[in-house]
C-alpha cells in the first residue's frame, strides 16, 4: 500500500486487521477524474470520518464501496481477500451497507418488512409472525421502541434512520457507510443516532461517517480522512487533528471556521412583526428587521422557524398577528403578493420549492419576474434573460460553462447560488434565507456568507434561518431563538453566544 501524501500512521486500532481495504482506486467520468489513486483502510470497531468539499470524490468512493459504480483501477480487499463488488446486492452479501441522508425506506411496507426487505435468502414465503418478532428484538437491542407493524410512512426522519440501522444490523454488516446522516436531524436526534453508532462500533462494525458538520465529526470519529479533488489528502487519528487543520486540508489553505461579518449600518425599520401565529404551528412571534440588518433565526429542527418564513412569504399564511412593511400593515396571503411587497424567500428545499432542475440557469433566474423579460409581442427576450444570468454568474461566481446549462447538472453549492440569483433578481427589500448553506461545501459556504454581507451592506433586510449555529452567530446582527413554535428570545450582538442561543433553544432557564 503506497501511502498518500501527508498520510500518517493510523492509531492503535492498527493492531486489528482491516475489514475493508481500498487500494489505488481510480475512477473517471468523461473528462472528470473523480478519484485518483485513493487508498483507504477501515478497521473493525472504528468510526472513520470522511471529509471533503462537494465534488471531492466522497460520494464516488461510497458508490464504489457499495457496488453502485465499478472502479477503473485499483483493488478492494475484504478481510484480506480481493473481491469485486459488482452490484448493490453483492455489496450487501459482502456485508457492506450504506445509510443516506434521506433514508431509503419503502413507505407502504411496514417497519419489519423494511428491516428485512433486502435479505436475499429468507425463503419464498414470508413468515410474518417470525419477522415481527425478530424485528422487535433487533429494535429492542437498539433501545428503540417502534411499532413494527406500522407502515414506514409517517415515521420521523430519526425513526427512519433507526430502521435503516436495524436493517444494517439484521444483515450482519461489517462495514456501514453513513452519508450525511445528521443533515436533517435535530440536536436531540443526533445524540440518539450517535448512541446507536457507538453501539455498532462496540459490536465491531467499521463505520465510515461522512458529514459536513465539523463539530459532530470530532465528537464521534476515531480517524479522520480528508479528500480534495478526488485525492486522499490525509488520514489521521481524530485526536491529532483540529477542525482548523481538517478544513485547511479540505480547501488546501488555512481558514477560520467562519469569519464574523462586520456589523453593517442599521437603516430605518423595514419590517415589524407583532404576535404572528399560525394556528397549531407557531405563535407569539414578534420582531423587527431594519434595512441592512441580518436577523438570525436559531432553534432546533421543527421549532417553527421555517413556518414563520413561509407565513411571511404567504405560502402558509399566518392566522393572526400583524405584519408591517415600511410602516404600512399588510395581510400577506400569497407568494405573489409577498413578492409585490418586495419579499423574497429562498427555500431550504432546492429541489421541491426552489428550482426547476431541467430548465436552464437563465430561465430559472428570470422565472419570478418573467414579465420584465417579455417583448411587446409577449415573447421572452432571451438575450436579456441571458445577460442577467451572466451578470449573476459573475457576481456570485457560479461555476458553469454557460448559463444555458440545466440547473440539475450543477453541484449543490452552485444550485444554491442560482437560487439566490433568482430571488435577488426580484430586487427584494427583505430577503428570507432558509438554510442557505445546507449540504454545500466549505468553499461555497464562504462565498454565500460573503454575499449575505454584501447584500446587507446594500441595505437589504435579511432573515437568516439556519441550523448551523456557528453560521447564525457569525452572520447575524441579532438572533431570534425559537423552540416548539414559540419565540424564546431575541439576543443581540454580544449577548448571542452558542451558549445563550442553545440554552434558549433547549428551553432552559437563562442563567442571570
Amino acid at each position, binding site marked *: 500500500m503506497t501511502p498518500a501524501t501527508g498520510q500518517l500512521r493510523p492509531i492503535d486500532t492498527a493492531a486489528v486487521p482491516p475489514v475493508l481495504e481500498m487500494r489505488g482506486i481510480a475512477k473517471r467520468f468523461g473528462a472528470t477524474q473523480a478519484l485518483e489513486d485513493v487508498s483507504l483502510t477501515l478497521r473493525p470497531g472504528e468510526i472513520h470520518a470522511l471529509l471533503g468539499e462537494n465534488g471531492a470524490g466522497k460520494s464516488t468512493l461510497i458508490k464504489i464501496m457499495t457496488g453502485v459504480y465499478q472502479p477503473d483501477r485499483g483493488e478492494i480487499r475484504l478481510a484480506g481477500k480481493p473481491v469485486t463488488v459488482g452490484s448493490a446486492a453483492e455489496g450487501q452479501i459482502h456485508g457492506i451497507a450504506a445509510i443516506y441522508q434521506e433514508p*431509503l425506506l*419503502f413507505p407502504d411496507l411496514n417497519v419489519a418488512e423494511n428491516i428485512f426487505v433486502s435479505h436475499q435468502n429468507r425463503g419464498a414465503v414470508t413468515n410474518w409472525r417470525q419477522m415481527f418478532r425478530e424485528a422487535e428484538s433487533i429494535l429492542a437491542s437498539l*433501545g428503540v421502541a417502534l411499532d413494527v407493524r406500522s407502515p414506514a410512512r409517517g415515521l420521523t426522519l430519526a425513526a427512519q434512520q433507526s430502521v435503516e440501522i436495524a436493517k444494517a444490523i439484521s444483515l450482519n454488516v461489517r462495514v456501514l457507510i453513513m452519508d450525511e446522516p445528521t443533515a436533517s436531524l435535530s440536536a436531540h436526534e443526533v445524540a440518539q443516532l450517535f448512541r446507536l453508532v457507538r453501539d455498532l462500533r462496540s459490536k465491531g462494525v467499521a463505520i465510515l461517517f461522512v458529514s459536513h458538520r465539523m463539530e459532530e465529526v470530532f465528537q464521534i470519529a476515531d480517524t479522520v480522512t480528508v479528500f480534495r479533488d478526488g485525492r486522499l489528502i490525509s488520514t489521521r487519528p481524530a485526536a491529532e487533528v483540529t477542525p482548523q487543520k481538517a478544513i485547511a486540508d479540505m480547501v488546501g489553505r488555512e481558514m477560520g471556521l467562519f469569519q464574523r461579518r462586520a456589523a453593517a449600518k442599521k437603516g430605518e425599520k423595514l419590517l415589524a412583526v407583532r404576535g404572528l401565529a399560525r394556528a397549531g404551528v407557531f405563535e407569539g412571534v414578534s420582531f423587527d428587521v431594519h434595512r441592512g440588518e441580518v436577523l438570525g433565526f436559531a432553534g432546533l429542527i421543527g421549532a417553527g422557524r421555517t413556518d414563520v418564513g413561509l407565513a411571511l412569504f404567504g405560502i402558509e399564511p399566518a392566522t393572526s398577528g400583524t405584519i408591517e412593511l415600511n410602516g404600512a400593515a399588510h395581510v400577506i396571503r400569497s407568494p405573489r403578493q409577498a413578492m409585490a411587497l418586495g419579499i423574497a424567500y429562498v427555500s431550504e428545499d432546492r429541489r421541491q420549492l426552489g428550482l426547476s432542475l431541467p430548465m436552464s440557469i437563465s430561465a430559472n433566474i428570470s422565472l419570478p419576474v418573467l414579465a420584465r423579460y417579455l417583448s411587446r409581442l409577449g415573447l421572452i427576450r432571451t438575450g436579456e434573460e441571458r445577460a442577467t444570468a451572466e451578470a449573476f454568474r459573475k457576481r456570485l461566481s457560479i461555476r458553469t460553462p454557460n448559463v444555458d446549462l440545466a440547473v440539475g447538472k450543477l453541484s449543490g453549492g452552485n444550485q444554491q447560488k442560482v437560487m439566490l440569483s433568482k430571488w435577488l433578481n426580484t430586487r427584494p427589500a427583505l430577503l428570507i434565507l432558509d438554510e442557505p448553506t445546507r449540504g454545500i461545501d466549505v468553499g461555497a459556504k464562504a462565498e454565500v456568507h460573503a454575499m449575505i454581507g454584501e447584500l446587507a451592506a446594500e441595505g437589504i433586510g435579511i432573515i437568516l434561518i439556519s441550523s448551523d449555529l456557528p453560521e447564525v452567530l457569525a452572520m447575524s446582527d441579532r438572533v431570534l431563538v425559537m423552540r416548539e413554535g414559540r419565540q424564546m428570545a431575541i439576543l443581540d450582538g454580544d449577548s448571542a453566544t452558542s451558549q445563550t442561543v442553545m440554552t434558549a433553544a433547549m428551553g432552559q432557564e437563562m442563567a442571570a
Partner: protein
Amino acid sequence: MRWLQRHIRPEQIREFSLLLLIVAAVLIFGSMIDGYYTSRTFNRIASSVAIITVVAVGQTLVVLTRNIDLAVGSIVGCTAYFTGAQLAAHHGLPPVVAVLIAMALGCAMGAINGALVAYGRVPSIIVTLGSLAIYRGILIDYSGARTVTTDSLPKWLIDLPRLNFITIGDLDIRAMFALAVGIVVLFQIGTSFLNVARRFYAMGSNPDAAELIGMPTRQIVFSAFVLSGTLSGLAGFMFLARFGNITVEAARGMELQVVAAVVVGGVNIFGGSGTVFGAMLGAIMIAILEQSLFRLQISEFWRDAILGLLILMAVASDAVILNRLRAIWSRTELKLVTRPGTGAAP
C-alpha cells in the same frame, strides 16, 4: 380506540367502508327495482364481476408498480375473438387447450407491453395507450370484421356460463364466478406472503430504494404486465363463454371498468399500496352499479359517466380520508421512544 389502531390499519377501514357502501347500494337499488332480490340478478352481477375481477387482479399488480395497463380491454377482445375463431374451426379442441390458447395469447400481448415499459423505458400510459389501439387494429384486420357466432361454438362452451360450482339455497354459484374468487384468493395470499410478490409493493413504494438494494426492478415491472396480460387472456376466454357472439368491438372500453374497480377498491394509483381483495370489492361495486342502472333503464353513456365520477371520488377520498386516517394513526402510535441510560453518554 387504541386497540382499534393497533389491530386495524387505515387501509382496512377503507375496504370495510367499501363493503358497507356495497350493502347500501344493494339496499337502495333493491327498493327502487322490482324483483331485485332474485337469483337472476345475483347471477347477472356475478358473471359480470367474474370477468372484471380477473382482469382487475392483473391490473392491481401493474398499478402497484406505479404503472397502468390500458390495453386490457383490447387484450380481452383479441383473445376472446381468436380463441372463439379457433374453437369454431376445430370443435374437437379440448377445453384445457382452449383456455391455454387464450392465456398464452394474452401473455404474449402483455409481454410486449412489459418489455416496452420495463426495458424500453417508455411510460406505461403511452405504451398501453398505443397497444390498446394497435391490438384492436390487429383484431379488426385478422377478423376481417366477421363475427364469431354462438351457433358456431362447441356446446360445452355455450353451456359453461350456466355451469354450477355449488348451490346454496336458491343461489347458484356459477363455476366462472368461483374461478374468479379462486384467483383472488390465490393472488391475495401470494401478494401477502410470497417474498417475490412483496416486491411489487416495494418497487411501487420507492423505486429508487428498490434499485439501490439490488431488486430486479425491470423484471418486476415486466412480470406485472405479463401477469396482467395472461389474466386478461383468461378473462377473454370467460368473455367468449359468456357472450358467445364476439365482434371486433368486444370488450371495448373495459379498461375504464377495470381501472375504476382497482381504484375504487383502494389500490393507490401512485403505486405501493392496495390489495387484490380490495380490487374485487371495487369490481363488485361497479358491476352492481352497471347492472342496476341498466335495470333502471339509464343510458349507457350515463353509466360511463357515473363510472368516471366514481374513479374521481375514489382518488379524492384516497388523498383526503386515507391521509387523515394515517395522520391519526401515526400521531398516537409512531412515536420514537429511546430507552434512556444505554450506551455511552455523549
